[in-house]
Protein backbone atom coordinates (compact mmCIF):
# COMPACT_ATOMS: atom_id res chain seq x y z
CA UNK A 1 0.00 0.00 0.00
CA UNK A 2 1.22 3.45 -0.86
CA UNK A 3 2.14 5.69 2.05
CA UNK A 4 0.01 8.65 2.89
CA UNK A 5 -3.76 8.52 3.07
CA UNK A 6 -4.91 5.84 5.48
CA UNK A 7 -7.46 5.00 8.22
CA UNK A 8 -9.46 3.20 5.59
CA UNK A 9 -12.94 1.77 6.25
CA UNK A 10 -12.82 -1.90 5.26
CA UNK A 11 -16.21 -3.27 6.27
CA UNK A 12 -19.30 -2.50 8.33
CA UNK A 13 -21.80 -4.93 9.78
CA UNK A 14 -25.18 -3.86 11.14
CA UNK A 15 -27.15 -6.69 12.64
CA UNK A 16 -30.62 -7.06 11.18
CA UNK A 17 -31.47 -9.58 13.87
CA UNK A 18 -29.84 -10.82 17.05
CA UNK A 19 -26.71 -12.90 16.45
CA UNK A 20 -24.41 -15.08 18.54
CA UNK A 21 -21.32 -13.48 17.04
CA UNK A 22 -19.97 -11.12 14.41
CA UNK A 23 -16.97 -12.03 12.26
CA UNK A 24 -14.73 -10.09 9.90
CA UNK A 25 -12.92 -12.63 7.73
CA UNK A 26 -10.44 -12.62 4.84
CA UNK A 27 -8.91 -9.44 6.26
CA UNK A 28 -6.32 -7.95 3.94
CA UNK A 29 -2.74 -7.98 5.23
CA UNK A 30 -2.01 -4.67 3.57
CA UNK A 31 -2.35 -2.57 6.71
CA UNK A 32 -0.35 -2.17 9.91
CA UNK A 33 -3.09 -1.84 12.54
CA UNK A 34 -6.79 -2.63 12.61
CA UNK A 35 -9.44 -0.69 14.51
CA UNK A 36 -12.97 -1.87 15.18
CA UNK A 37 -15.57 0.55 16.45
CA UNK A 38 -18.59 -1.21 17.89
CA UNK A 39 -21.84 0.20 19.24
CA UNK A 40 -23.81 -2.64 20.67
CA UNK A 41 -26.59 -3.86 22.88
CA UNK A 42 -27.33 -7.39 23.95
CA UNK A 43 -30.50 -9.44 24.00
CA UNK A 44 -30.27 -10.12 27.73
CA UNK A 45 -27.80 -10.02 30.57
CA UNK A 46 -24.70 -7.88 30.90
CA UNK A 47 -21.51 -9.23 29.39
CA UNK A 48 -18.24 -7.87 28.08
CA UNK A 49 -17.45 -7.91 24.37
CA UNK A 50 -14.87 -10.64 23.74
CA UNK A 51 -12.89 -11.64 20.65
CA UNK A 52 -11.12 -14.56 19.02
CA UNK A 53 -8.53 -14.32 16.26
CA UNK A 54 -8.23 -16.66 13.29
CA UNK A 55 -10.87 -18.91 14.85
CA UNK A 56 -8.53 -19.97 17.65
CA UNK A 57 -10.59 -21.51 20.47
CA UNK A 58 -7.57 -22.57 22.55
CA UNK A 59 -6.59 -21.11 25.90
CA UNK A 60 -4.17 -18.75 24.21
CA UNK A 61 -5.57 -15.43 25.37
CA UNK A 62 -4.98 -13.28 28.43
CA UNK A 63 -5.89 -9.77 29.49
CA UNK A 64 -5.30 -7.00 32.01
CA UNK A 65 -8.01 -4.42 32.55
CA UNK A 66 -8.68 -1.17 34.38
CA UNK A 67 -12.20 -0.03 35.14
CA UNK A 68 -14.08 2.70 36.95
CA UNK A 69 -17.74 2.39 37.83
CA UNK A 70 -18.44 5.79 39.35
CA UNK A 71 -17.41 4.89 42.87
CA UNK A 72 -14.43 2.54 42.59
CA UNK A 73 -11.44 2.12 40.29
CA UNK A 74 -10.21 -1.45 40.02
CA UNK A 75 -8.01 -3.73 37.95
CA UNK A 76 -8.02 -7.43 37.21
CA UNK A 77 -6.85 -10.00 34.70
CA UNK A 78 -7.63 -13.21 32.90
CA UNK A 79 -4.90 -15.75 32.15
CA UNK A 80 -4.95 -18.65 29.67
CA UNK A 81 -8.55 -18.20 28.60
CA UNK A 82 -10.24 -19.00 25.31
CA UNK A 83 -11.05 -15.43 24.26
CA UNK A 84 -9.66 -11.94 24.78
CA UNK A 85 -11.41 -8.77 25.86
CA UNK A 86 -12.27 -6.32 23.11
CA UNK A 87 -13.57 -4.12 25.93
CA UNK A 88 -14.24 -4.94 29.55
CA UNK A 89 -17.25 -2.67 30.04
CA UNK A 90 -20.43 -4.75 29.87
CA UNK A 91 -23.27 -3.96 27.58
CA UNK A 92 -26.94 -4.20 28.38
CA UNK A 93 -30.19 -4.19 26.51
CA UNK A 94 -29.84 -0.53 25.55
CA UNK A 95 -27.41 0.79 22.95
CA UNK A 96 -25.02 1.94 25.58
CA UNK A 97 -21.76 0.09 24.96
CA UNK A 98 -19.26 1.86 22.75
CA UNK A 99 -16.05 -0.09 22.19
CA UNK A 100 -12.99 1.07 20.27
CA UNK A 101 -10.68 -1.88 19.72
CA UNK A 102 -7.14 -1.79 18.27
CA UNK A 103 -5.31 -4.83 16.89
CA UNK A 104 -1.72 -3.66 16.65
CA UNK A 105 0.73 -4.88 14.01
CA UNK A 106 -1.72 -7.61 13.12
CA UNK A 107 -0.11 -8.78 9.89
CA UNK A 108 3.41 -9.55 11.09
CA UNK A 109 4.42 -13.17 11.64
CA UNK A 110 7.09 -12.50 14.27
CA UNK A 111 5.37 -11.20 17.39
CA UNK A 112 2.48 -12.29 19.54
CA UNK A 113 -0.50 -10.05 18.93
CA UNK A 114 -1.52 -7.48 21.53
CA UNK A 115 -4.75 -5.52 21.43
CA UNK A 116 -6.05 -2.41 23.17
CA UNK A 117 -9.67 -1.62 23.99
CA UNK A 118 -11.50 1.39 25.40
CA UNK A 119 -15.04 0.70 26.44
CA UNK A 120 -17.69 3.08 27.65
CA UNK A 121 -21.15 2.50 29.00
CA UNK A 122 -22.57 5.59 30.63
CA UNK A 123 -24.95 3.45 32.65
CA UNK A 124 -22.31 1.12 34.08
CA UNK A 125 -18.59 1.94 33.77
CA UNK A 126 -15.65 2.92 31.60
CA UNK A 127 -12.55 0.81 31.00
CA UNK A 128 -9.21 0.26 29.33
CA UNK A 129 -8.02 -3.25 28.55
CA UNK A 130 -4.96 -4.86 26.97
CA UNK A 131 -5.19 -8.42 25.68
CA UNK A 132 -2.56 -10.86 24.41
CA UNK A 133 -2.97 -13.63 21.84
CA UNK A 134 -0.02 -15.98 22.20
CA UNK A 135 0.38 -16.70 18.51
CA UNK A 136 2.68 -15.19 15.89
CA UNK A 137 0.37 -15.79 12.92
CA UNK A 138 -0.90 -12.89 10.87
CA UNK A 139 -4.46 -12.06 11.82
CA UNK A 140 -6.88 -12.81 8.98
CA UNK A 141 -10.16 -12.94 10.89
CA UNK A 142 -11.63 -11.56 14.09
CA UNK A 143 -14.80 -12.81 15.74
CA UNK A 144 -16.74 -10.96 18.43
CA UNK A 145 -19.19 -12.40 20.94
CA UNK A 146 -20.52 -11.53 24.39
CA UNK A 147 -19.19 -13.13 27.56
CA UNK A 148 -16.56 -15.71 28.40
CA UNK A 149 -18.62 -18.63 27.14
CA UNK A 150 -18.55 -16.99 23.70
CA UNK A 151 -21.44 -16.32 23.60
CA UNK A 152 -23.14 -15.93 26.93
CA UNK A 153 -25.89 -13.88 25.26
CA UNK A 154 -26.70 -12.73 21.75
CA UNK A 155 -25.68 -9.39 20.29
CA UNK A 156 -28.89 -7.45 19.69
CA UNK A 157 -30.32 -6.37 16.35
CA UNK A 158 -29.18 -2.92 15.32
CA UNK A 159 -25.70 -3.32 16.79
CA UNK A 160 -22.96 -2.03 14.49
CA UNK A 161 -19.32 -3.01 13.93
CA UNK A 162 -17.01 -1.08 11.60
CA UNK A 163 -13.52 -2.28 10.68
CA UNK A 164 -10.78 0.18 9.67
CA UNK A 165 -7.22 -0.37 8.44
CA UNK A 166 -4.28 1.91 9.17
CA UNK A 167 -1.17 1.58 7.01
CA UNK A 168 2.18 2.87 8.18
CA UNK A 169 4.63 4.48 5.76
Amino acid at each position, binding site marked *: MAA*GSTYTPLATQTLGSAAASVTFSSISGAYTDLIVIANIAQSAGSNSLRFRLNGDTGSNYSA*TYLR*GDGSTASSGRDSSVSSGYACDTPGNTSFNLMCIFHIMNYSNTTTYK*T*TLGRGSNAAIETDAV*VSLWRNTAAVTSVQFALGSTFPSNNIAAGSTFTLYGIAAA
Partner: protein
Amino acid sequence: MSPILGIIASSNFQRVTSSYASIATTTVGSGGSSGITFSSIPQTYTHLQIRMIARNSSSSDAVRGQFNSDTTAANYSGHLLYGDGASAGAAAATSFGKFGAGYQAQSSTTAGTFGVSVLDILDYTSTSKGKTTRFLGGYDANGTGAVGLFSSGYYASPAAITSIYIFPDSGNFAQYSSFALYGIKGA
Protein backbone atom coordinates in the same frame (compact mmCIF):
# COMPACT_ATOMS: atom_id res chain seq x y z
CA MET B 1 18.90 15.40 23.22
CA SER B 2 22.13 15.73 21.34
CA PRO B 3 23.61 13.79 19.78
CA ILE B 4 20.62 11.82 18.60
CA LEU B 5 21.00 8.31 19.96
CA GLY B 6 18.40 6.51 17.98
CA ILE B 7 17.25 6.04 14.47
CA ILE B 8 16.41 9.02 12.30
CA ALA B 9 13.21 8.42 10.45
CA SER B 10 12.84 11.78 8.75
CA SER B 11 14.02 10.47 5.39
CA ASN B 12 10.69 8.77 4.96
CA PHE B 13 8.58 11.93 5.28
CA GLN B 14 6.14 12.29 2.42
CA ARG B 15 3.92 15.04 1.13
CA VAL B 16 0.32 14.02 1.66
CA THR B 17 -3.06 15.67 1.63
CA SER B 18 -5.45 13.33 3.47
CA SER B 19 -6.98 14.02 6.88
CA TYR B 20 -5.19 11.05 8.52
CA ALA B 21 -1.87 10.30 6.92
CA SER B 22 1.13 8.13 7.56
CA ILE B 23 4.27 10.27 7.93
CA ALA B 24 7.09 7.92 8.95
CA THR B 25 7.79 4.54 10.56
CA THR B 26 10.81 3.10 12.33
CA THR B 27 11.28 -0.56 13.21
CA VAL B 28 14.15 -1.55 15.50
CA GLY B 29 16.69 -3.95 14.05
CA SER B 30 18.53 -6.90 15.52
CA GLY B 31 20.94 -4.75 17.53
CA GLY B 32 18.22 -3.04 19.53
CA SER B 33 17.98 0.72 19.99
CA SER B 34 18.34 3.20 22.83
CA GLY B 35 15.65 5.36 21.24
CA ILE B 36 14.13 6.55 18.00
CA THR B 37 13.64 10.06 16.67
CA PHE B 38 11.10 11.55 14.33
CA SER B 39 12.66 14.80 13.14
CA SER B 40 11.78 17.53 10.63
CA ILE B 41 8.12 16.80 11.32
CA PRO B 42 5.92 18.58 8.77
CA GLN B 43 3.92 21.48 10.22
CA THR B 44 0.97 20.85 7.92
CA TYR B 45 -1.22 18.86 10.32
CA THR B 46 -3.21 19.77 13.42
CA HIS B 47 -2.50 16.75 15.60
CA LEU B 48 -0.02 13.88 15.61
CA GLN B 49 -0.50 10.26 16.62
CA ILE B 50 2.19 7.67 17.28
CA ARG B 51 1.15 4.02 17.28
CA MET B 52 3.76 1.67 18.70
CA ILE B 53 4.59 -1.86 19.72
CA ALA B 54 7.59 -2.10 22.05
CA ARG B 55 9.66 -4.59 23.99
CA ASN B 56 12.56 -3.80 26.30
CA SER B 57 15.91 -5.37 27.07
CA SER B 58 15.52 -4.69 30.80
CA SER B 59 12.87 -4.68 33.52
CA SER B 60 11.40 -1.32 32.53
CA ASP B 61 7.83 -1.21 31.26
CA ALA B 62 7.76 2.55 30.59
CA VAL B 63 8.28 4.32 27.28
CA ARG B 64 9.15 8.02 27.50
CA GLY B 65 9.43 10.95 25.12
CA GLN B 66 10.97 14.37 24.73
CA PHE B 67 10.16 17.16 22.30
CA ASN B 68 12.56 19.29 20.28
CA SER B 69 15.62 17.79 22.05
CA ASP B 70 14.44 19.56 25.23
CA THR B 71 15.59 17.79 28.41
CA THR B 72 14.61 20.64 30.77
CA ALA B 73 12.96 19.00 33.77
CA ALA B 74 10.57 21.86 34.51
CA ASN B 75 9.08 21.71 31.03
CA TYR B 76 7.32 18.39 31.56
CA SER B 77 4.65 17.06 33.92
CA GLY B 78 1.99 14.39 33.80
CA HIS B 79 -0.72 12.27 35.39
CA LEU B 80 -1.17 8.50 35.10
CA LEU B 81 -4.15 6.22 35.78
CA TYR B 82 -3.19 2.55 35.67
CA GLY B 83 -4.13 -0.99 36.54
CA ASP B 84 -1.71 -3.86 37.16
CA GLY B 85 -4.17 -6.72 37.23
CA ALA B 86 -4.61 -6.56 41.00
CA SER B 87 -5.35 -2.94 41.80
CA ALA B 88 -5.86 0.44 40.19
CA GLY B 89 -3.65 3.38 40.97
CA ALA B 90 -2.86 6.93 40.05
CA ALA B 91 0.35 8.92 40.00
CA ALA B 92 1.61 12.36 39.07
CA ALA B 93 4.96 13.74 38.04
CA THR B 94 6.19 17.33 37.97
CA SER B 95 9.52 18.58 36.64
CA PHE B 96 9.72 15.19 34.99
CA GLY B 97 12.10 16.06 32.14
CA LYS B 98 10.18 13.76 29.79
CA PHE B 99 6.64 12.72 29.04
CA GLY B 100 4.88 9.37 29.30
CA ALA B 101 4.70 7.91 25.81
CA GLY B 102 3.58 4.33 26.35
CA TYR B 103 4.12 0.87 27.78
CA GLN B 104 6.54 -1.82 26.69
CA ALA B 105 6.90 -5.50 27.57
CA GLN B 106 9.80 -6.26 29.88
CA SER B 107 12.60 -8.66 28.98
CA SER B 108 11.33 -11.15 31.57
CA THR B 109 8.16 -11.76 29.57
CA THR B 110 7.89 -14.60 27.07
CA ALA B 111 9.68 -13.85 23.82
CA GLY B 112 7.30 -12.39 21.28
CA THR B 113 5.35 -10.37 23.84
CA PHE B 114 5.16 -6.65 23.09
CA GLY B 115 3.48 -3.71 24.74
CA VAL B 116 1.27 -1.49 22.61
CA SER B 117 0.35 2.18 22.87
CA VAL B 118 -1.45 4.91 20.98
CA LEU B 119 -0.03 8.37 21.75
CA ASP B 120 -1.79 11.59 20.73
CA ILE B 121 0.00 14.95 20.56
CA LEU B 122 -2.51 17.75 20.23
CA ASP B 123 -2.07 21.12 18.51
CA TYR B 124 1.62 20.43 18.03
CA THR B 125 2.23 23.41 15.74
CA SER B 126 0.93 26.02 18.15
CA THR B 127 3.42 28.71 19.19
CA SER B 128 1.12 30.27 21.76
CA LYS B 129 0.35 27.53 24.25
CA GLY B 130 1.78 24.51 26.02
CA LYS B 131 1.29 21.10 24.45
CA THR B 132 -0.86 18.30 25.84
CA THR B 133 -0.34 14.65 25.08
CA ARG B 134 -2.11 11.49 26.11
CA PHE B 135 -1.64 7.80 25.58
CA LEU B 136 -3.62 4.62 25.99
CA GLY B 137 -1.29 1.68 26.36
CA GLY B 138 -0.41 -1.54 28.07
CA TYR B 139 1.11 -4.96 27.88
CA ASP B 140 -0.12 -8.36 28.94
CA ALA B 141 2.08 -11.40 29.48
CA ASN B 142 -0.43 -14.03 30.59
CA GLY B 143 -0.20 -13.50 34.33
CA THR B 144 1.53 -10.15 34.50
CA GLY B 145 0.89 -6.86 32.81
CA ALA B 146 -0.39 -3.34 33.08
CA VAL B 147 -2.73 -1.01 31.28
CA GLY B 148 -3.01 2.73 31.68
CA LEU B 149 -3.84 6.18 30.48
CA PHE B 150 -1.26 8.95 30.78
CA SER B 151 -1.67 12.66 30.09
CA SER B 152 1.35 14.93 29.92
CA GLY B 153 2.03 18.59 29.50
CA TYR B 154 4.95 20.28 27.75
CA TYR B 155 5.39 23.89 28.73
CA ALA B 156 8.31 25.27 26.75
CA SER B 157 6.80 28.07 24.72
CA PRO B 158 6.48 29.28 22.16
CA ALA B 159 7.57 25.99 20.65
CA ALA B 160 6.00 24.12 17.79
CA ILE B 161 6.94 20.45 17.91
CA THR B 162 9.41 19.66 15.15
CA SER B 163 11.03 16.52 16.56
CA ILE B 164 10.03 13.73 18.94
CA TYR B 165 12.44 11.43 20.71
CA ILE B 166 10.91 8.17 21.99
CA PHE B 167 13.00 6.06 24.36
CA PRO B 168 12.74 3.34 27.03
CA ASP B 169 12.97 4.49 30.65
CA SER B 170 15.95 2.16 30.95
CA GLY B 171 17.59 -0.43 28.74
CA ASN B 172 17.05 -0.63 24.99
CA PHE B 173 14.16 -1.26 22.69
CA ALA B 174 14.28 -4.85 21.46
CA GLN B 175 14.20 -5.98 17.85
CA TYR B 176 10.82 -5.64 16.09
CA SER B 177 9.73 -2.76 18.28
CA SER B 178 7.99 -0.46 15.83
CA PHE B 179 6.88 3.18 15.91
CA ALA B 180 4.60 4.78 13.33
CA LEU B 181 3.93 8.54 13.15
CA TYR B 182 0.68 9.85 11.68
CA GLY B 183 -0.65 13.34 11.04
CA ILE B 184 -4.28 14.41 11.50
CA LYS B 185 -5.52 17.51 9.70
CA GLY B 186 -8.06 20.04 10.85
CA ALA B 187 -10.58 21.67 8.58
